[in-house]
């Protein structure tokens, strides 16, 4: 079959079972958009900004586990998408992002809307391609999907010059992928696994430290079983929320800068840390020289470069988490004695009783933590939760009752304000049965507010809950604590009328000052099932606590802070 490069792109997407593409057209990618117009195998969602197209594809990918696809034009279209690529790279999100490029004959001439796209994306993608011959397109696209979704997942960028999309060539997608230089390790080394399990058997105070890899490798079920079988307490990172159920008796919340006291004490006191797909991020470890000082470390990860990158590991195991955990369980079932860890479990539970995650209610101000808990009570498992970046994000991680993997969709590694709303659109498209809630801040929401139009036009009923503190709250908190309350450029007293703003785009808006008003607004928004913004006026000066000041040790937490 001989077809154009543009048609090849369509055929490849169909062959990859793509049902949704998020994108924004322009000159260099018009041939492909012309073919999109002619087909009806997948839907195209026109976002109102390229950054949002990539975040929407991320939301889609994170909630479904499938590869997300975004399409953009050359030059400014591409540069607008870079934040999305970087975000996906940091959080290991499988994406294929296709960009148009100026024709081959113009490359290198500073042509209109020319930018060295692969030069820019090289450092924020798992891999990238500049296609210089349509003959290569079927292979490149097939490789792109494979690379994005295998091993440690990540975004792959394919840049296609306009003349290549017009070139007519043979299309054969059946040729198997042959990548001599890329062979991710799936099975863990059996001897290493045995050694690790023996170390668990010998340990007195073992602790599971579960990371985002547990979700990426679809290993939550196995991890739940393993934790239950061994009776060993577990902490899960921000990226791993929902791997264990919130009410799992062995889960002791989240470690790190805004983790719980018990989780951080457990991290500090353990004698064997069993890291499952976590990457020892600086927001988790605190001061490295004091981190897990008494512990030997088992580290299971699909990415060998993650192992011993930050902390020296004693039992490295490279492999897919699901496989490795299954193998570990086979060996553990006959050697592990649960009772051995009971005294340790008791002391961890004691830490939790000493300083549980908590907040103080106030009779005339709404507390953001209450709002999040309330969403949890009203919607619980029925909602997928995306967040933006800031205090509201940390409160969500602390207080929402997550009960399944892929329920929390957030920008962890890059911390991208503006991620939440477009991601929530992608989430809703991929999982239409569940309510898609974006918990956001008054700062973050304005960073992709134009997506109200996308959501309204395509009838994608995302509910934005703005925890409105009239501040760039997280930065304000640091200024309060570490800059002697000099609130430099963080006061957002000047605000749009969010209700009118929602209306202007054809959505619905609510302002909420009380608990009753909040319940009424959320119930109404869920029932009406249209694009909504709930502007929740919360206590302006609420801080995220507890906190490990940056550079501090995990066991040295600031437990509360009194304003004035």
């Amino acid at each position, binding site marked *: 079959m001989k077809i154009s490069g543009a048609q090849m792109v369509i055929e490849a997407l169909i062959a990859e079972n793509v049902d949704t593409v998020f994108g924004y057209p322009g000159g260099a990618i018009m041939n492909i958009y012309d073919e999109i117009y002619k087909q009806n195998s997948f839907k195209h969602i026109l976002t109102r900004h390229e950054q949002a197209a990539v975040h929407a594809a991320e939301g889609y990918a994170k909630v479904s586990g499938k590869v997300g696809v975004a399409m953009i034009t050359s030059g400014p279209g591409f540069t607008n998408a870079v934040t999305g690529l970087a975000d996906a790279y940091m959080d290991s999100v499988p994406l294929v992002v296709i960009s148009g490029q100026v024709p081959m004959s113009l490359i290198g001439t500073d042509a209109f809307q020319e930018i060295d796209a692969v030069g820019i994306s090289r450092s924020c993608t798992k891999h990238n391609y500049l296609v210089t011959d349509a003959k290569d397109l079927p292979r490149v696209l097939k490789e792109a999907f494979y690379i994005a979704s295998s091993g440690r997942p990540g975004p792959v960028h394919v840049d296609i010059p306009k003349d290549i999309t017009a070139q007519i060539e043979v299309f054969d997608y059946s040729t198997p992928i042959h990548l001599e*230089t890329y062979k991710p390790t799936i099975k863990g080394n059996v001897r290493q696994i045995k050694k690790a399990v023996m170390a668990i058997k010998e340990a007195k105070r073992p602790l599971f430290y579960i990371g985002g890899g547990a979700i990426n490798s679809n290993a939550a079920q196995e991890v739940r079983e393993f934790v239950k079988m061994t009776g060993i307490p577990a902490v899960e990172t921000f990226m791993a929320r929902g791997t264990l159920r919130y009410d799992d008796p062995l889960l002791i919340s989240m470690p790190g800068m805004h983790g719980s006291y018990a989780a951080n004490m457990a991290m500090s006191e353990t004698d064997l840390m069993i890291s499952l797909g976590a990457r020892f991020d600086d927001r988790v470890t605190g001061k490295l020289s004091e981190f897990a000082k008494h512990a030997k470390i088992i580290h299971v990860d699909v990415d*060998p470069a993650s192992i011993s990158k930050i902390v020296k590991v004693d039992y490295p195991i490279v492999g897919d988490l699901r496989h490795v955990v299954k193998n570990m369980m086979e060996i553990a079932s006959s050697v592990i004695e649960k009772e051995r860890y009971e005294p340790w479990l008791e002391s961890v539970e004691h830490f939790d009783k000493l300083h549980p995650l908590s907040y103080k209610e106030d009779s005339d101000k709404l507390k953001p933590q209450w709002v999040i808990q309330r969403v949890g009570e009203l919607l619980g498992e029925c909602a997928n939760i995306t967040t933006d970046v800031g205090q509201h994000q940390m409160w969500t991680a602390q207080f929402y009752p997550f009960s399944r993997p892929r329920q929390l969709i957030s920008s962890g590694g890059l911390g991208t304000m503006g991620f939440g709303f477009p991601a929530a659109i992608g989430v809703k498209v991929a999982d239409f049965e569940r309510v898609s809630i974006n918990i956001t801040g008054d700062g973050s929401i304005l960073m992709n507010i134009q997506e109200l139009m996308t959501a309204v036009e395509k009838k994608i009923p995302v509910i934005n809950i703005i925890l409105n503190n009239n501040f760039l709250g997280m930065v304000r908190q640091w200024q309060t604590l570490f800059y002697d309350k000099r609130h430099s450029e963080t006061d957002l007293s000047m605000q749009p009328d969010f209700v009118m703003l929602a209306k202007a785009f054809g959505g619905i808006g609510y302002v909420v000052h009380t608990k009753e008003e909040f319940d009424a607004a959320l119930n109404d928004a869920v029932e009406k099932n249209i694009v909504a913004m709930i502007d929740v006026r919360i206590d302006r000066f609420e801080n995220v606590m507890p906190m490990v000041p940056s550079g501090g040790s995990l066991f040295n937490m600031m437990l509360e802070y009194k304003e004035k």
Partner: protein
Amino acid sequence: MEAVRRVISVVVLNEASVLSRITDLFSGRGYNITSLTVAPIPKSKYSRLTIVTSGSMRVIEQITKQLHKLIPVLKVIEHCDAVEKEMVLVKFSSDNSISDIETICSAYNGKIVNAGDGFFIALIADESQRMDNFLDAIERFHPKEIVRSGTVALER
């Protein structure tokens, strides 16, 4: 942690922008490149790079792992027992005594490879450290130009 010197060979697919992938990795992650040599491997679709770098043992371990992670990288060899050579070309004015310089050159496995109107050029191929010694030794002849290559290495 103390910095150590390492010679690392990398076998990569010989395709567009593969060299930038490697150098971007080094600059992006703050690794050192002391020298870098690249050439295609004859009768194959691969090229071989030889990189001389330095860093703590942890950094060196990360360098090899991160290199491996690049999709077009086939093999990463961290040399521990290798024959290492680099090459230098030095241009002298013919005011100098050729025989004096030739004597020094031969002590470093080198020779005069070209002579012209008012100049001659010496070539030496030797280990990095001996190359430094050679360059010290010829300083008094006031070389007009010195061109030094990166290292190539072959594990014994």
